[in-house]
C-alpha cells in the first residue's frame, strides 16, 4: 500500500479549523494505547490525565501558572516561525530573561519600590532579546544556521544559571543550598485571586501579549511583512522589506517574550533564582506554537492544553503510579499529529493498494 498526496486547488478551510482537534483526538487514542501497553487501565489513566486536574478551582490556578510561560513563549515563536526563522533556543532565552530580571532583587535588595517589578520585567525582556540576538547576528552576519546556534546556547544558558545559583548568586543564609535569596514582596508578581488559588499575574501578561501580537499580525504592516518574508522571501525583498531586519525582529521578539516569561516565572511561581527554573517550557512552547497554528490567539488555547499535560503527568503519577515521563511522550506525539494533520489542509490523501495504481479509497 502506498499513499499519494493530491494538491487541493485551495487551502481547505475545514481542515484548517479542525486539524488541531483531530491531532488532539489522535493523541488521546495513542495515549489509550500507551496506557494499555503499560498495563494501566487506559480510561482511568486518561481521566486522571485530562479531567482530574480540572476538577477544582485551585487546580485551574495551577493550570494557569503552567500555561502562562508556555503561551508567552509560543506567541513569540509563532511570529518567528511565520517569518521562517527557526528559533529553537527559547529555553535558553527564558533562562537568561529569568537571570537578568533577577539582577534587581539579588544585587539591589534594598530597591523596593513600585518600580521594582516593572524594571525586572523590562530587564527580563531585554535579557531574553539579547540572548535571541546572538543567533540572529550569527545568521545575518556569518550566514550561520540559527537552528543549531540557538539550540547550543540553551546548554550554555543552563550551565551559566547553574553556576550563578551555586556560586555568585547563592543565598549566603541558605545552608549551602543552591538558589538565591527569596525575593522581597515588591519584586514578586502577585497572585490574582489569592483566596482561590495561587495563579499570579503572569497569565494575564501572557494573554495580553498574545492579543497585542495577534493585532500586529492581523492589522499592521509589520505583520504583513512577517507573512510575506516568511512565505516567499524573494517577493518580500521585491516589496522592499529587509530579510536581515526581519531576522532580528523575529529573534528579538521571540527572545524577548521568552525572557519575559522567564522573569515572570521566577518572580511569580518560584520567588527566587534557582539552579533550574524551567521544566522544558521553551521546548514545549514549540509544540504550543504549532498546535496553535502559529496564530497568537491559537497559542492561548494550545498553551492550556500543554499545561494540562504537565499537570496530568503529576496527577496520574500520584493516583495510578504512571510515570510522569509519559507527559513528555504525549507532548511529542501531539506535535507529530499536528504536523501530520496539517498536511490535510493543503492536500487530499489517497491510499493506493497493490501495484495497479488503482485508487481504492479516498479520504479527506
Amino acid at each position, binding site marked *: 500500500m502506498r499513499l499519494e498526496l493530491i494538491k487541493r486547488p485551495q487551502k481547505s478551510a475545514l481542515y484548517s479549523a479542525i486539524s488541531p482537534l483531530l491531532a488532539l483526538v489522535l493523541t488521546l487514542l495513542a495515549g489509550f494505547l500507551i496506557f494499555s501497553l503499560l498495563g494501566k487501565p487506559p480510561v482511568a489513566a486518561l481521566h486522571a490525565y485530562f479531567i482530574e486536574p480540572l476538577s477544582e478551582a485551585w487546580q485551574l490556578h495551577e493550570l494557569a501558572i503552567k500555561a502562562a510561560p508556555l503561551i508567552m513563549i509560543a506567541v513569540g515563536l509563532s511570529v518567528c516561525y511565520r517569518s521562517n526563522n527557526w528559533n529553537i533556543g527559547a529555553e535558553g532565552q527564558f533562562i537568561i530573561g529569568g537571570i537578568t530580571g533577577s539582577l534587581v532583587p539579588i544585587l539591589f535588595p534594598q530597591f523596593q519600590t513600585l518600580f521594582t517589578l516593572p524594571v525586572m520585567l523590562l530587564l527580563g525582556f531585554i535579557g531574553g532579546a539579547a540572548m535571541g540576538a546572538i543567533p540572529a547576528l550569527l545568521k545575518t552576519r556569518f550566514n550561520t544556521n540559527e537552528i543549531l546556534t540557538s539550540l547550543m546556547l540553551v546548554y550554555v544558558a543552563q550551565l551559566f544559571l547553574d553556576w550563578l545559583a551555586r556560586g555568585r548568586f547563592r543565598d549566603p543564609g541558605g545552608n549551602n543550598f543552591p538558589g538565591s535569596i527569596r525575593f522581597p514582596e515588591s519584586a514578586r508578581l502577585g497572585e490574582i485571586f489569592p483566596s482561590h488559588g495561587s495563579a499570579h499575574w503572569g497569565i494575564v501578561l501572557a494573554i495580553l501579549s498574545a492579543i497585542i501580537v495577534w493585532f500586529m499580525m492581523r492589522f499592521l504592516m509589520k505583520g504583513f511583512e512577517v*507573512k510575506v518574508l516568511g512565505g516567499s522571501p524573494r517577493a518580500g525583498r*521585491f*516589496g522592499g522589506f529587509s530579510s536581515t531586519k526581519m531576522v532580528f525582529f523575529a529573534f528579538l521578539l521571540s527572545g524577548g517574550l521568552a525572557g519575559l516569561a522567564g522573569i515572570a516565572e521566577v518572580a511569580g511561581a518560584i520567588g527566587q533564582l534557582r539552579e533550574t527554573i524551567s521544566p522544558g517550557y521553551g521546548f514545549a512552547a514549540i509544540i504550543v506554537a504549532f498546535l496553535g497554528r502559529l496564530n497568537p490567539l491559537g497559542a492561548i488555547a494550545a498553551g492550556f492544553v500543554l499545561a494540562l499535560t504537565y499537570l496530568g503527568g503529576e496527577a496520574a503519577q500520584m493516583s495510578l503510579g504512571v510515570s510522569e515521563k509519559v507527559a513528555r511522550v504525549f507532548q511529542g506525539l501531539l506535535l507529530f499529529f499536528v504536523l501530520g494533520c496539517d498536511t490535510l489542509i493543503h492536500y487530499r490523501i489517497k491510499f493506493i493498494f497493490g501495484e495497479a495504481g488503482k485508487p481504492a479509497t479516498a479520504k479527506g
Partner: protein
Amino acid sequence: MQDRGNDALLLETRGLTKVFGELKACNEVDLKIAPGEIHALLGENGAGKSTLVKMLFGVLDPTEGGIYWKGEPVRIGSPGEARRHGIGMVFQHFSLFEALTASENIALVFDEKTPISQIAERARAVSVEYGLPLDPHAMVGDLSVGERQRIEIIRCLLQKPDLIILDEPTSVLTPQEANRMFDTLERLKAEGTSILYISHRLDEVKRLCDTATVLRHGKVVAHCDPRQETATTLANLMVGSDVEAVKRQASAATPGPPLIEISNLERPPATPFSIPLRGIDLTVRGGELLGIAGVAGNGQGEFFEAVSGEWRQERADTIRLNGRNCGHKNISDRRMVGAAFVPEERLGHGAAPALPLSDNLLLSRHTTDRRAMVGPLGFVRMGAVKEATQRIIREMDVRKSGEDPEAAALSGGNLQKFLIGRELDREPMVLVVDQPTWGVDAGAAARIRKALIDLARAGSAVLVISQDLDELFEISDAIAVMHDGRLSSPLPIAEASFEKIGLLMGGAEPGHQAHAHAEAHANTEGSHEPGAPI
C-alpha cells in the same frame, strides 16, 4: 489485450485524458506519429501540451485512454519504462543536476553496468557526430542554457530512441543555434527517428515539421500539414479566434528627457552559478520602449535586480531613474521617484503565492501609496487596498474565481495582467518588465503588450527584457542584446533584423566572445567533488 493500434504507426494515443482535480488538462486526445516523421504539437500555454507528453514519457499517469506503441497497447509507468520502449525526451526546464558533471548527468539514466568513463566516451562520440559540442567533465551549474540543452539532447540520443520528444527546444537558443539544431533533427529524421516537436513558434514548425496536431483547452482541434497552412491559420487554430496583432504606433516625434540612465553598471556574481554584469551603459528616454533581447541566463535576472534596487550599487549615479540618482536607493525608494518593476517570476518574486491579491497589491504599493493605504502605527487600511485591487481587476480584465483569491490560484496570464496592472495603476514614469508575456495565453499577451506601448506613448520610459524576439520586434522602438553580462548598444527597430539580433545574442559583436566563455568553463573542473572515476 483485445485491441491493437495501427501497426503502421510508431505511436498512437486514443482518447487520452488527464484530470487534475476539476481541470481536464487533456481531454480525449488522439495523436498519431508515423516512423521517421517530425510531428508538431501546437498549442497555447496551458493547452495541455506538456501534460500530454508527460503521459507519453511516463511522468504522469493518464486518467483514461490508451497509448499504443508500434501497434501494441502499453502502460508507461515511469520514464524508465518509456526509455526501455525507445522514447526519449528533452525537457523544457531541463532535468539536469547542477552539482554534477555532464557525464554524471548522462550516466544517471543508464544502468550500473556501464562505467562512467565509457559513458563519457560515448557522449563525446555522439557530440562530435551530431555537431553538438560538449565537455563531459564540466559542472552543469557552470554551463549556459544552450550547453545544458545539448547535454539533454545527447543523453537522449545515447539511448538510441525511436521517438524523441522535444519540449519548446528553441526557447533557449539564438536563431543561429536553432538552425544548427534543426540540422541535427533533419539528420535524425533521415536515420528513421521520429520526433515529437512541441512549439508555439509557427514559422519554425512550418519549416521543420511534416504533420501537426493542434491542441486547445486540452482538446485536439485539428490534425494538419503545417506546410499547407499559413502562420495566421495555424495561430487561429491554436487560439480559436482571430488574434488582434498589436499595431505599433509610430514613435513619438521628439523623444522626451532621459528617464533611465545607466552608466558602467558592474556586478560581481551573486551566487556561484550566476552571471556577473560587465560595464553596462544604457539610456532610455521618455516616450521610448526599449527591448532587451538575449538567451536566458545571460544576466537578465541580475540586471533586473540591479535596476530595481533589490541589489544596490556602490555609486549613486550608476543608475539614475526619472532624473534622480538611484544607485544607493532601495526598491521602495526607487518606486518613490516614479519607477515600477515587474519581475520574470510571477509566483514567489512578483507575488507571494499564498497571499490574496489585495495583499499582493499592498506588496509593491505600500510605500508609494502610504497615505491612502497605511495609517498610523502601520495600520493597514484594508478598505482602500481592496478598492484599488478591484479597480485593477476591472481595468485589466483579470479573470478569477472568488472575491480576493490567492495569487497562486490565478492562471499565469491573469496573474501577469494583475501584476502589470498593479504597476500601471500608479502611472509610473519608468517601467521595467522582465519577460512580460512568458507563459501567458495569446489574448492576455496582446493586452499586456498594448498596455506597455500605451504607457510609452504617454511619455514614460519602458524597458522590456524578453527572450521572445517576435514580441520585441512587435513592440520595441529599439532593441539591445544582453550576452554574458554585457549589453550591446541599442539598434533602432528600423535597422534591426532577426539575423543581426541573433548574431548579437550569440555573442558575435567584438568583445562578446561566446566560445571563449564556453571554454573557460571547461577549465573549471576539478574544483568540485572528485566523484567520477574518469
